């Protein structure tokens, strides 16, 4: 029998561990990754000619980052690695790729989607000004290019990444004006039982807050963002917000890093026809999978933050677990004891992630409260008022129908950054549960492609 073809999409923590499991089983998987280098976003590698050591780049996770990179380096001869390659569609049992002007359709026996996450954004008036960046983007700037996104930076939103990136900026010598968290401090206390699933990670989080306090950075909890103040020419000039006690305040800055934790990149799972289910805790639609990562479609497996936001440590375990499931389904021998142990690890990470979701909740009410003149879709400048008017005129209450009429979700980012907030706004306006609004369907190509007509 010919060797089964396993395709792994993504070379972050889950993709790397999945590839490692395949190679150990004697299979040479195809690993397709959009990045120039492996590591994904969380363990993103700096360019070759940069010299900062692991401890400086990855802090408490330095050992994990280094181990993952070394694993990938050692695998390179044993895998078919295709960096800087976009998977833009999955159809007819094939993965469709584009790299530069080259394109290919590759059939597979097993497909492991390790697609990772992007920032989850709650729009705020003025977030279209130059100098506003996603929180993850602000971390990429520092980690992979050694720059700060501005001369004076405000971190606004919620989630563990808010504190991590702000403290990384402080330690790198950037001027951090404030950390403004929309989550009330009391939410953390309620989440404590679940957060205790991983005491060392919880302690790392506490230490980050101490770093910020020692540096004299203003940290506020329970804030309500009102507006990013700015100018169409020079960009961001400050942020206006309400404190937990309801007082309005303004902080001057020339850059804002904003985000509310993360959202999985599920478009490829959608194009592979995987079933989705609504997750009430995070208020997101997620692809369904069994405990080992099998999707509802035979031969498709889901792992890491691309399936559900459980963090980088969980991604390593779920990547390996999904690969073992794929290998078992292909009739290859798999250590059942290891499978059971990985399931236990993932369950513990899931408990911790549930704690994080409770401690740093998605402020759905802020979408409902967006003023009519606030930009909701920053790709095409569609305002909250535009979407509300479309709903009144057309009666559209379903995500894809509202998109068709308003263009919210149809621009360059294809709904990645406005889609979740738009659904909340529609739900509030129509007075119905957000799950009834549905979810934006994945569309191929999942990112814009170059149309190139050559002489060949």
């Amino acid at each position, binding site marked *: 029998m010919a060797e089964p073809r396993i395709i792994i999409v993504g070379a972050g923590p889950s993709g790397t561990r999945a590839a490692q499991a395949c190679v150990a089983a004697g299979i040479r998987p195809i690993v397709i990754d*959009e990045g*120039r280098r492996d590591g994904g*976003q969380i363990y993103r590698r*700096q*360019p*070759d*000619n*940069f*010299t*900062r050591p692991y401890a400086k780049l990855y802090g408490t996770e330095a050992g994990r980052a280094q181990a993952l990179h070394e694993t990938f380096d050692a695998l390179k001869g044993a895998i078919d690695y295709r960096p800087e390659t976009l998977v833009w569609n999955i159809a007819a049992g094939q993965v469709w790729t584009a790299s530069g002007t080259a394109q290919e359709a590759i059939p597979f026996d097993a497909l492991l989607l390790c697609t990772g996450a*992007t*920032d989850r954004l709650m729009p705020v008036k003025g977030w*279209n*000004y*130059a*100098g*506003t*960046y*996603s929180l*993850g*983007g*602000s971390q*990429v*700037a*520092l980690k992979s*290019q*050694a*720059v*700060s*996104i*501005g*001369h004076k930076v405000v971190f606004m939103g919620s989630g563990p990444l808010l504190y991590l990136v702000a403290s990384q900026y402080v330690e*790198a*010598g*950037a001027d951090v004006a404030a950390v403004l968290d929309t989550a009330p401090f009391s939410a953390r206390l309620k989440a404590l039982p679940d957060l205790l699933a991983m005491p060392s990670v919880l302690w790392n989080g506490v230490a980050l807050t101490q770093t910020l306090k020692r540096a004299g950075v203003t940290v506020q909890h329970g804030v309500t963002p009102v507006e990013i103040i*700015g100018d*169409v*020419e*020079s*960009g961001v000039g400050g942020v206006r917000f309400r404190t937990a006690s309801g007082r309005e305040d303004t902080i001057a800055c*020339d*850059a804002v890093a904003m985000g509310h934790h993360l959202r999985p*990149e599920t478009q490829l799972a959608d194009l592979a026809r995987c079933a989705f289910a609504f997750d009430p805790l995070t208020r997101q639609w997620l692809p369904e999978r069994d405990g080992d990562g099998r999707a509802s479609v035979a031969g498709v497996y889901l792992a890491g933050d691309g399936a559900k936001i459980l963090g980088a440590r969980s991604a390593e375990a779920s990547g390996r677990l999904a690969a073992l499931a794929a290998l078992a389904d292909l009739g290859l021998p798999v250590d059942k004891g290891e499978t059971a142990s990985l399931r236990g690890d993932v369950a513990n990470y899931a408990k911790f992630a549930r704690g994080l979701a409770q401690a740093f909740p998605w402020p759905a009410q802020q979408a409902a409260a967006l003023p009519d003149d606030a*930009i909701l879709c*920053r*790709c*095409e*400048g569609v305002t909250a008022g535009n979407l509300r008017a479309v709903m009144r005129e057309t009666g559209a209450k379903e995500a894809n129908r509202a998109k068709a009429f308003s263009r919210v979700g149809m621009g*360059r*980012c294809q709904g*990645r*950054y406005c889609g979740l907030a738009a659904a909340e706004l529609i739900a509030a306006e129509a007075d119905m549960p957000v799950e009834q609004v549905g979810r934006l369907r994945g569309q191929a190509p999942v*990112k*814009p492609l*170059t149309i190139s007509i050559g002489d060949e």
Partner: protein
Amino acid sequence: MSRFVRLGETDRPSVALHVDGAPIQALEGDTLMVALLSAGDRLRQSEFGPEKRAGFCLMGACQDCWVWTESGDRLRACSTLVAPGQRILTSQPEASWPSHV
């Protein structure tokens, strides 16, 4: 005034390129985005509003940072490295189409 601030790794060879016809200096290993925003405060004009734009996600997901080569190739500034002698445009060079008139 620059938008980005370099916090380290500045001991790299410099690279000369042109942006909208004007020369700028970058460092080897810079992305186009870091090169342009270390030399200035914007990447482009929004095509749907009055404001300037300077990118957003830095991980190839939002497409807010498109720039062009003089021959019309579109580049994602956040994920394209600088190269000596590059000539970058921050607005799309005009395409010419055959006309029936």
